[in-house]
């Protein structure tokens, strides 16, 4: 404990000790003066006479009288006959010495207590400091013990609080959605990694200030919502517009909840629904055209029937539009299926080579296989990836059909699959008109259709490539297109290959089923060489 004394405590103890000593000194001087006053009457020395032992009558005034008495000095100032004064002096001296000692000891103990209390009150180290070392057996010791108990309690609570904080942070970080907390003034106190990813600002950049993701024009509404949270209200499913760091708008489904009664602020969970909202909007619009056809044709039918006119020419149109409606609805439902992440949980070891061949088989039935040229399939054997076979087959079929649609009838579509660096790469190339640079980024958007084919019988619904992208994403891969106008387009899909040794291995499989996409991509990139060796090793052993 003494080692951790602070200068303030040391100074206090010093002051207390000096004070005791000063008081003693003043008392001594006062008593001496008193005795000096009593000695004013004249005296004579009695030479030859032995001084009395015990209470000496002959003393020197001003020198240490005890010393003088011990040496038996016979001469000196004749002190008045005042044994009471001597006793008083003696008692006073002893008292002073005792007071000094006790005072000093008390001061030391008090300083130790003060030091201990100061350490406990300190930012952190308090509870970890040495326990108070006081064995006085009195109230001070009890105070010291109480202080120790208090320190132990604080330490336990502090540890609990830290652990609970760590748990809360881990929980917040494990949420794949942006989670943001703010205090009563609306200043950010927490900004998780998903928020950093979605909005673009780091936590360090936004802590202690108003969220920069709230656009100026939404500021008042955001503050009004926050006021409701501070009043203790929980809100969920609010659709709001926010912005990313690059200024682009982002549509959010927002849930807000107060901390306790709300006076301490609260937190919000953000779900990015930009793409879904857009998808729904466009899907609804896309349904309008065939709907308008069907309802208009039905009205015409009624009129013509009422007028006794022939209706034969309307029936094929009606059939075509209802078929288009049905196809559009199926495509929308399929897109929803991949959007909702229903692919992820079904992942199993899939041979991509076999999947490609199977997709081509189904196209052969459709009578277009002679236009498809295979240029090398991965390693002449299986190429194992973690996947959902049915959507993967759909993806290959869509890419090939798309290429066939956009290339001249006499031009082949070239398909290849390769495995290297832990990645399986599928490419589908056509020799069609190509895609203008301005539209390259948009071809994977839902309902995107080449401007040349919009409304024509040849063009699709604009969901095929979007669904392909969603399928590839769900497998932790990526899809992109390269094209030069007039020189065709090449669609490429990259998927991470399996890292596991045991085809169909149960434990490993279930382990991979959770969050498989990201995990696989990381593994694939980290160990490209091993992945390749492994993939090739499996190729030899498999029966393909």
């Amino acid at each position, binding site marked *: 404990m003494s080692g951790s004394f602070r200068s303030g405590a040391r100074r206090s103890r010093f002051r207390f000790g000096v004070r005791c000593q000063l008081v003693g000194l003043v008392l001594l001087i006062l008593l001496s003066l008193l005795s000096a006053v009593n000695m004013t009457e004249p005296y004579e020395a009695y030479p030859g006479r032995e001084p009395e032992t015990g209470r000496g009558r002959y003393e020197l005034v001003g020198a240490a009288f005890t010393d003088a008495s011990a040496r038996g000095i016979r001469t000196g100032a004749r002190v008045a006959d005042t044994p009471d004064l001597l006793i008083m002096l003696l008692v006073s001296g002893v008292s002073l010495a005792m007071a000094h000692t006790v005072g000093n000891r008390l001061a030391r103990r008090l300083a130790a207590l003060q030091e201990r209390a100061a350490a406990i009150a300190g930012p952190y180290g308090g509870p970890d400091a040495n326990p108070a070392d006081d064995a006085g057996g009195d109230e001070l010791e009890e105070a010291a013990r109480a202080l120790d108990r208090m320190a132990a309690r604080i330490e336990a609570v502090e540890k609990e609080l830290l652990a609970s904080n760590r748990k809360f942070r881990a929980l917040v970080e494990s949420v794949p959605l942006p989670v943001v907390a703010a205090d009563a003034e609306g200043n950010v106190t927490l900004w998780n990694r998903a928020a950093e990813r979605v909005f673009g600002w780091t936590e360090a950049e936004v802590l202690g200030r108003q969220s920069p993701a709230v656009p100026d024009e939404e500021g008042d509404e955001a503050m009004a919502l926050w006021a409701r949270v501070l009043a203790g209200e929980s809100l969920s499913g609010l659709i709001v517009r926010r912005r990313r760091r690059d200024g682009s708008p982002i549509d959010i489904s927002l849930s807000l909840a107060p901390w306790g009664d709300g006076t301490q602020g609260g937190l919000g969970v953000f779900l990015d629904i930009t793409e879904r909202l857009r998808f729904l909007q466009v899907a609804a619009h896309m349904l*309008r055209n065939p*709907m*308008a*056809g069907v309802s*208009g*044709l039905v009205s015409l039918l009624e009129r013509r029937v009422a007028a006794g006119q022939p209706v034969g020419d309307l029936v094929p*149109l009606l059939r075509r539009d209802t078929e288009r409606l049905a196809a559009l609805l199926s495509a929308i439902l399929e897109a929803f299926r991949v959007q909702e992440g229903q692919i992820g949980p079904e992942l199993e070891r899939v041979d991509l080579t076999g999947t490609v061949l199977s997709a081509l088989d189904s196209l052969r039935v459709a009578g277009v296989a002679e236009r498809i040229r295979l240029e090398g399939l991965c390693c002449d054997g299986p190429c194992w990836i973690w996947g959902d076979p049915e959507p993967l087959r759909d993806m290959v079929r869509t890419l090939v059909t798309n290429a066939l649609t956009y290339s001249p009838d006499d031009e082949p579509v070239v398909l290849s699959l390769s495995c290297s660096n832990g990645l399986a790469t599928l490419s589908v190339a056509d020799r069609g008109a190509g895609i203008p640079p301005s539209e390259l980024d948009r071809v994977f958007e839902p309902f995107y259709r080449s401007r*040349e084919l919009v409304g024509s019988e040849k063009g699709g619904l604009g969901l095929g490539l979007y669904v392909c992208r969603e399928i590839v994403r769900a497998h932790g891969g990526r899809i992109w297109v390269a094209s030069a106008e007039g020189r065709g387009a090449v669609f490429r899909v990259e998927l991470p290959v399996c890292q596991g040794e045991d085809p169909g291995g149960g434990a490993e499989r279930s382990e991979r089923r959770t969050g498989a996409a990201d995990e696989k991509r990381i593994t694939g990139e980290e160990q490209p060489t091993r992945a390749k060796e492994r993939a090739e090793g499996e190729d030899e052993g498999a029966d393909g």
Partner: protein
Amino acid sequence: MLVIEDEATIALILSEVLREQGHEAVTVSGGAAGLDWLRESPPPDVVLLDLFMPGLGGRDVLKAMRSDPRLKDVPVVLVTGAVPSVEDFPPNGTYQALITKPFDLSDITETIDACLRRR
């Protein structure tokens, strides 16, 4: 009356309704063909224009019409189903009416009548 519409069904419905109303209706598929027809023929009483078409869309056709002295005063009724975004919409004041798909046949007759009355 001119109908610029690339959807065969909609074009058929619109032209039949117009004819029943006693108008003469010409149907052209696509924006570019529509603009060509407009430039080569006497201006029609009303143009029914589909907004979302391959190649030259309704917005482009409308813009070209408004900058052509011969065509700038021809009333235009926009017919629209799929509108991907507000940005695809022509500015207010450049067209006389808007019909959204799906529509009632009476929507067509009433809108056309209103346009003709205003002239």
